[in-house]
């Protein structure tokens, strides 16, 4: 009871930074978790890396011009998404082209980060672009972040069924008269927003934790697509809140009492959840065998 009282009246709830951090991680987490399930189905995890890596170049460039880093992430992410769509699926040597363009952008990113540290004389920019900055993010971005996440969820809901068929088998989708190209384009848009939102929250390097972690766990546990999406979103929200809470508490932790990075904590919680999901899936298969209920 005493603990509960302390929890409810904790200064945690009175800090605007904490609330912004909760909003940012929750909205980035939920949209990534939902889009992530389709990324897993479509086998596009690698594309997630490309989007956030190119986005990081944009974010590091935006610091140079004192623009909010989220705009940098989003604009370069859209550029990368458009590039990937233009290259298409069947182009020969696509992997080579992608790899080279990616290294070109990461090279640019390295240059911008170098210039950033010259301008601001600290390594903070590098840290926040690569590893996230939920407590120090510009509060003015928060409504935009929530808005784009919500709009993205609406887009995914609108194309839900055709997207599912396209993700299972594009040729079959085409035979049934689904505009595969348009569905793919809309999904790419949703993918970019999810990737860049979670890049802002988690940093470019750890954003895949939000994109892949909950979705992979959801797909392992669930036998139904709706359940997979629900579990994925729940796991993302749990990781976000637990991560922010622990990051806040970690200011009292040894050794230095300077706190641990929030993105590190969230990424580790997501990893634990994934391991837990694997165990749950195996356990369920085991129970089913014991029960003799075979479903071939």
């Amino acid at each position: 009871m005493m603990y509960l009282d302390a929890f409810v009246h904790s200064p945690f709830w009175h800090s605007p930074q904490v609330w912004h951090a909760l909003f940012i991680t929750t909205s980035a987490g939920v949209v990534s978790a939902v889009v992530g399930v389709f990324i897993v189905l479509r086998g596009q995890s690698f594309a997630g890396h490309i989007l956030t890596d190119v986005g990081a170049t944009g974010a590091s460039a935006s610091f140079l011009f004192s623009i909010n880093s989220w705009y940098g992430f989003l604009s370069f992410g859209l550029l990368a998404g458009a590039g990937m769509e233009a290259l298409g699926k069947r182009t020969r040597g696509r992997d080579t082209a992608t790899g080279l363009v990616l290294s070109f952008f990461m090279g640019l990113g390295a240059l911008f980060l170098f210039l950033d540290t010259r301008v601001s004389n600290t390594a903070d920019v590098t840290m926040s672009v690569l590893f996230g900055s939920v407590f120090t993010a510009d509060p003015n971005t928060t409504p935009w972040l929530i808005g784009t996440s919500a709009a993205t969820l609406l887009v995914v809901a609108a194309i839900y069924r055709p997207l599912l068929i396209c993700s299972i088998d594009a040729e079959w989708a085409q035979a049934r008269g689904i505009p595969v190209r348009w569905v793919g384009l809309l999904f790419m848009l949703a993918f970019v927003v999810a990737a860049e939102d979670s890049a802002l929250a988690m940093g470019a390097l750890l954003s895949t934790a939000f994109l892949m972690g909950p979705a992979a766990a959801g797909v392992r546990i669930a036998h139904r697509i709706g359940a997979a999406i629900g579990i994925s979103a729940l796991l993302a929200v749990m990781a976000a809140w637990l991560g922010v809470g622990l990051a806040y508490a970690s200011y009292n932790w040894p050794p230095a009492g300077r706190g641990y990075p929030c993105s590190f904590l969230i990424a580790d919680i997501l990893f634990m959840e994934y391991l837990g999901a694997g165990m749950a899936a195996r356990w369920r298969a085991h129970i089913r065998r014991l029960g003799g209920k075979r479903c071939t």
Partner: protein
Amino acid sequence: MLDVRDVHVHLAERLVLAGVQFQIEAGEFVGLIGPNGAGKTTLLKTILGLVTPDLGQVLVDNRPIRRGNPAIGYVPQKVHLDPDTPLRGRDFVALGLDGVRWGVPLPRRSRRERVERALGSVQALTYADAPVGRLSGGELQRLQIAQALVGEPRLLLVDEPLSNLDIRNAHEVVRLLHELARSRGMAILLVAHDLNPLLSALDKVVYLARGRSMAGRTDEVMTSESLSRLYGYPVEVMRTRGRIVVVGGPDMHLVPPEAADHAGLGEWEATTP
């Protein structure tokens, strides 16, 4: 029901279909037979509206075809499913009912009943709740048929359903399709490279070779004279122990047609005497 009129199709500057012509009536079970590379898949795509013929036309119910026609059900050769795909058999079948519509599906009783009926008509109710990625080839094949049936099409296109199945399952699937054609008055066009497993069930054969077709009853089409005319060189049709074998056709040659294609040679020129 289906009327294919003198269809010509060029793909990558090669004439793949050069005057294909046949009709299918409601309730008929028809086999589309031909060696590899004869243009069977292209013909199927043309009927589905995915390929536009350069010449000739395809009519369904006397109207030109369009892509996504609900009167046509399509069972693709193979759907690649990851073992972890979070879909149960009945969800997979439900995608055939309203999967092309926008938005999230709402649970409705009529929807559930239609899916249940489709599952029942292919005897797939026992594994309808299992994840589709873990089913055997025969089980998945039945679900694919149910998925095409649930939209109540009047023409069913089935692409090479037997190539991934063992003899017993192949026989079962043929019997099932035959029954569906009878009981529902549905026209079925089944693509296969081997005619023999279908012999007892087919009403009609459309034989495709070198981009041209020959259609009719099995005993009319599968004769040395008519197939030699189609191939443009002498082949012999032999009947032995209830099986039909085409001797001298491209499948009998030592150079498989794919190898001839890879060598940059024309369709059958490598092996034609």
